[in-house]
């Protein structure tokens, strides 16, 4: 599930009121905008939630999407995060076919990606993996060879990347 090249992340602060998620998602549907992924969770301020929505900007100009979103009364603030300017994370759960002869390889592959085994059956394993979406894409591609029974990803969450003066520290952050 590679992200489209022209995806853009919107971090949308909304009032925590009934129906707000429906307002946002139906606006996208009504105006013909494509949602690539969407994650919603409370914030540290109980009045607000944050919706992180990855939009496909091939289909509609980002500016128009943002302006239409901003017209929703319950939308408080919208931050646009260009892919390079954000720290993005996502969670992946996968149940994969793992009979005794390949089980070791599956566990090893999960280890390489810093994943963990969270469920064990006679012929299957359930793995969890956290990381940047690209890392999850890579893992998903490799694990597919073993026979995926079920896979679920959360959709990404993101925050603006912190700007620091030290180039070396930034480089270290990039490497993570």
């Amino acid at each position, binding site marked *: 599930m590679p992200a489209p090249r022209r995806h853009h992340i919107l971090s949308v602060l909304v009032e925590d009121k009934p129906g707000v998620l429906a307002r946002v998602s139906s606006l996208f549907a*009504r105006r013909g905008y494509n949602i690539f992924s969407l994650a919603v969770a409370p914030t540290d301020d109980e009045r607000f939630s944050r919706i992180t929505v990855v939009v496909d900007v091939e289909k509609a100009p980002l500016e128009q999407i943002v302006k239409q979103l901003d017209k929703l009364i319950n939308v408080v603030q919208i931050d646009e995060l260009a892919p390079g300017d954000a720290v993005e994370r996502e969670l992946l759960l996968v149940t994969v076919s793992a009979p005794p002869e390949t089980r070791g390889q599956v566990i090893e592959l999960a280890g390489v990606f810093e994943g963990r085994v969270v469920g064990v059956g006679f012929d299957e394993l359930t793995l969890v993996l956290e990381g940047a979406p690209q890392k999850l894409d890579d893992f998903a591609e490799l694990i597919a060879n073993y026979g995926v029974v079920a896979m679920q990803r959360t959709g990404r969450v993101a925050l603006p990347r912190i700007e620091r003066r030290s180039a070396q520290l930034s480089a270290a952050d990039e490497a993570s």
Partner: protein
Amino acid sequence: MKTNGAAALIKSLEMEGVEVIFGLPGGAILPVYDPIIDSPIRHILVRHEQGAGHMAEGYAQVTGRPGVAMVTSGPAATNIVTPLADAYMDSVPLVVITGQVGTKAIGTDAFQEVDTVGMTRSITKHNELVTRAEDIPRAVREAFHIATTGRPGPVLIDIPKDIVDPANPNSELDWYWPDSLDLPGYNPRMEGDPALIKAAAELIGQARRPVLYAGGGILKARAAEALTALAELLDLPVVTTLMGRGAIPDDHPLCLGMPGMHGNYTAVTAMQEADLLVALGSRFDDRVTGKLDAFAPHAKIIHVDIDPAELGKVRRPDVGITGDCRLVITELITALRDLGAPGNQPDRSEWKSTISGWQETYPLTYTQSEPGELLKPQFVLEQLRDNTPDDCIVASGVGQHQMWTSQYWKFNHPYTWVNSGGLGTMGFAVPAAIGAKVGRPDKMVWAVDGDGCFQMTAQELVTAAAERIPVKIAILNNAYLGMVRQWQEMFYEERYSEVYLSPDLPDYKMWAEAMGCVGMRVESPEEVLPAIEKANSIDDRPVVIDFRTDAREKVFPMVASGTSNSDIVIGPGES
């Protein structure tokens, strides 16, 4: 003070200064109807909930105040969906209150339950299902604020029965009236950015062929006087869109009239040939632009709108200004003067003479009927226009009659034209005219309707007769769904599919009389004026005149759908 939800709801409407509610009671909203008996607010009992919504729109459009409609749950809520969508498209401030099943029954497919807020989410500026009685005053206060500020629009409040039923403990609350609003995500920008206003003033100063493109936003912002002042300062021609008719008087020498699919040649062509369009509260609607990539190809664009999402939605502006039209135009006039206007402007005499040349060469025309032929609808409209007060309010439905009315009427005052522009709702005229007359009882109100439209909402004339609301209805009865017929004639090789309605079925005169109105029928030109004069003299009940008009008559000029405005067709067989 202890109170209950129903009393609090009515009290809240009183606090908002509501003078009239258009509505129809039913099961879920029943408790709210009880305190109406003791309230100074006038309630007008409609015959169909769609009528309530359009009446509230007509009221709002002529008064500038929010229209209020109240109906019950389920089918009543679905019936008012059309007016909500209509008001959303035309930015009409409405507050619509719907009843809902009790909070415990929500989601159980209870009797007369629909997901009203879910259904109306995309056709309201905002809506809210109120679940606690104590939220009612807050919800009402917010609804009126949201409906009337920024870009106006409809707001719906859905009220479950248990929180308004005095017999239910859920309806108890301590009365309060919120002195402030907590809407952290809503802060419409009113003032234009001074730097952008200066940039706009400079761009105007460079234009040789400018046109002011005035839309409904001028009227919503009460900016008609400001617009005229701007036009007069620099001697700039103005086109007024279907929603903006009356923004500058039609008899003003700078007013070019309506552009668009059925606009006049001069208004359409002036925009097409302009080197600068100053869009003021207008939104580059497809009916105005025609084929978009051929629209006004040489024009730079200044776009002023209260809604930032309109800037760049259709056509990218060179200068886009978010703000209230009245404030921005006023600031723009100051900025122009600061730059030396009107003295610093380029010579535009050639542009002026080009425009007046078009006006002389291509006026609106039609051929008067021969003896024995049916009436020409344009003739009826000219007679109506010339024999009603200058500030007469006119409402219309949607179709040929609407276009002819917009073309032939002289809108010399703002807020005198009430029609359904964006949604194009057939049946709008009768209830909208009733609402307009309720809002402006001091003015004469005519509706110009088609026979197809009239059949959709005519029952509201019963409301008007019962409430003594003396509106006057001119049906241009050509026995067809006329605009559809026109398209079938022009684009479907005269294959008339399902457009014939019959002139006599129903008998409009008898129908009008059955509804408590005066009914008349007019078939020849010499009968037109006496009928209009008789209608004008009746002030105690509605009047309906069935004008028998010629179905062969088509609306011209016309820019065919999907073609360039440069390919405007002036009349039958001409281009």
